């Protein structure tokens, strides 16, 4: 089921949760709504479900306007952040609920309900828990039951609100892969909300990055990571180092081997932002050319196979964060206080266009 969101706005008092959102979701895709808290992602999901009404704008489902449809009529499966299982009903009855409350005319008979629920419980690999109550289940099990319950009514669209938010790290990882496989098997158009960029990148076909009620970028995980449309997207998708400054004409034109020198780091006249990810630095003992930045090692912390370093560059307050493989760092044979040279391998540059305040990005 394809969905088209047209210019949707929603405010709560003075707070603009959604500020003119346009988005198309092709049929059968698994889409992640990614953004920090307060970015409007949950509001957008709830508007899609019909649990919240948009102030203006339209939602088209396969070309038909469904903005006014009641939640019941939308054929949407909604998985809540805290699962919202019916605590007084057994797991079996929880999953059967959607079938049992159908109007008499369309309500399936008991045998069908029984076989359908059993089938769904097998699908989520929890058919042995049918007569337990929600309180007796672990978080991961509740999550899967919530999904089975939503699937029971054969939704055309599956919406998941922070589906893994309340789970511990290991279960979260397992469930992510499981959700991806399930989606590939069932092929239901699905949208899930997350504030975890890793989760969004790993699970989804397409990532929608929201910030302050507006969409910053839509694209495949590779697209948004490799070619972020705005500084926000770049910053949100992982740890990074920001260098603000004046970038010389020939450097922008060349598009490669950007020099981030002392001079560029200090001059802010042109409003250019250059980003370098911590793992995109070369660290060496001597400068081999003029692209090298002299830096002093202030901090080193080994985490598993990598070493996190912080360097101080003269004239810059923020330390530069660098990540090196442990073996590479050992090979340098240096300690805190060492004077080294940094060379950025890959720089993401954004130049602010003064006229419409849009960002033009370029990689090198």
């Amino acid at each position, binding site marked *: 089921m394809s969905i088209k969101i047209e210019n949707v706005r929603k405010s709560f008092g003075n707070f603009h949760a959604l500020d003119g959102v346009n988005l198309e979701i092709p049929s059968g895709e698994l889409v992640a709504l990614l953004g920090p808290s307060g970015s409007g992602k*949950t509001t957008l999901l709830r508007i899609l479900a019909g*649990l919240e009404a948009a102030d203006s704008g339209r939602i088209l489902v396969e070309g038909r306007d469904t903005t006014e449809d009641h939640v*019941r009529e939308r054929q949407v499966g*909604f998985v809540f952040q805290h699962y919202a299982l019916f605590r*007084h009903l057994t797991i079996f009855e929880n999953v059967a*609920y*959607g079938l049992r*409350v159908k109007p008499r005319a369309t309500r399936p008979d008991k045998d069908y309900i029984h076989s359908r629920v059993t089938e769904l419980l097998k699908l989520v690999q929890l058919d042995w828990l049918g007569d337990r109550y929600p309180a007796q289940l672990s978080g991961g099990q509740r999550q899967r039951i919530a999904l089975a319950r939503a699937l029971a009514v054969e939704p055309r669209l599956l919406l998941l609100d922070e589906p893994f938010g309340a789970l511990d790290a290991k279960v979260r990882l397992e469930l992510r892969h499981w959700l991806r496989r399930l989606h590939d098997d069932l092929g239901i158009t699905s949208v899930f*909300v997350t504030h975890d960029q890793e989760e969004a990148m790993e699970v989804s076909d397409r990532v929608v990055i929201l910030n302050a009620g507006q969409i910053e970028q839509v694209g495949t995980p590779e697209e948004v990571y490799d070619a972020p449309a705005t500084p926000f997207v770049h910053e949100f998708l992982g740890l990074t180092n920001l260098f603000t400054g004046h970038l010389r004409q020939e450097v922008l034109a060349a598009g490669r081997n950007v020099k981030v020198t002392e001079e560029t780091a200090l001059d802010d006249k042109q409003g250019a932002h250059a980003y370098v990810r911590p793992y995109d630095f070369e660290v060496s003992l001597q400068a081999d050319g003029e692209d090298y930045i002299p830096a002093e090692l202030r901090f080193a912390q080994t985490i598993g196979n990598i070493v996190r370093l912080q360097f101080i560059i003269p004239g810059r307050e923020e330390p530069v964060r660098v990540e090196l493989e442990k073996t590479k760092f050992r090979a340098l044979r240096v300690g805190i206080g060492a004077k080294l040279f940094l060379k950025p391998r890959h720089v993401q540059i954004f130049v602010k266009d003064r006229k419409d305040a849009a960002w033009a990005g370029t990689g090198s």
Partner: protein
Amino acid sequence: MPSPISPAPAKNGPEVRQQTPRARMRDAVGEPPWMRRLLIGLAILLISVILLVPLAAVFHQAFAKGVDGYIAAITAPDTLSAIRLTLLACAIAVPFNVVFGVAAAWAIAKFDFKGKNFLITLIDIPFSVSPVIAGLVFILLFGAQGYFGEFLSEHDIQLVFAVPGIVLATIFVTFPFVARELIPVMQAQGTEEEEASISLGADGWKTFWRITLPNIKWGLLYGVVLCNARAMGEFGAVSVVSGHIRGETNTLPLHVEILYNEYDFSGAFAVASLLAFLAVITLIAKKFLERGVRAEIKAAENMVPEQGALHS
């Protein structure tokens, strides 16, 4: 007797030894033993003087003329009539307040609307207004000289000094009990389950019967028990609107007063013992139901592992 601080002697066996760490911990954070005993002793003394002795006195006085006198007192026609009237008032007031209380709590806990705080204040008025004043208000409104008095007498409707007035006064004073009990339970439970139900295709009515009501059943029963106890025991408001017509507009508490004023002490206490007995039953039911209510609220907290988690 060994003091709680001293380590348990070996001869007392493993049972006592298991408790020792806990006793020691209590000691580390608590008051010295003499202080504890003094406070507990004071509390017991106070409860005895204020609650237990009077309760015993009621039953002692009730049987002052023996079992036969007791039975005679509570089977007197006027007493039976008072019992019937009290039961009737409860039979109307309690269901009314159940319906109103559930509806009000549902609206307050599950929806956001303008004037919500005003509604909560409104529900609390019977708690803050003296029952006598509540009764007087009804006289002022529906009495012969009242605002609606002329209209009522024209249509031959008798509200005050009659059964309808007593029912009205009872409803008024018991108004907050069910709603007040349900609001915190429903607020703890939030609205996610109802939203889940609706997204699964249930309409509002089915959602209420299948999801909301089962989740609040203990809180509701608890509210009903408190409401019922108050309805049966109400004196002030009912006294003003009743008119004290023996055998017609006398409820149990009013009847106790009449008997007492007529120096029929054993009769008064015999009837009072019925109310005291009701109080004891209420206490037992309350104790039993409280456990259910706590479980309901605790279950609500368990179902939401991260309270106030990020909603963006």
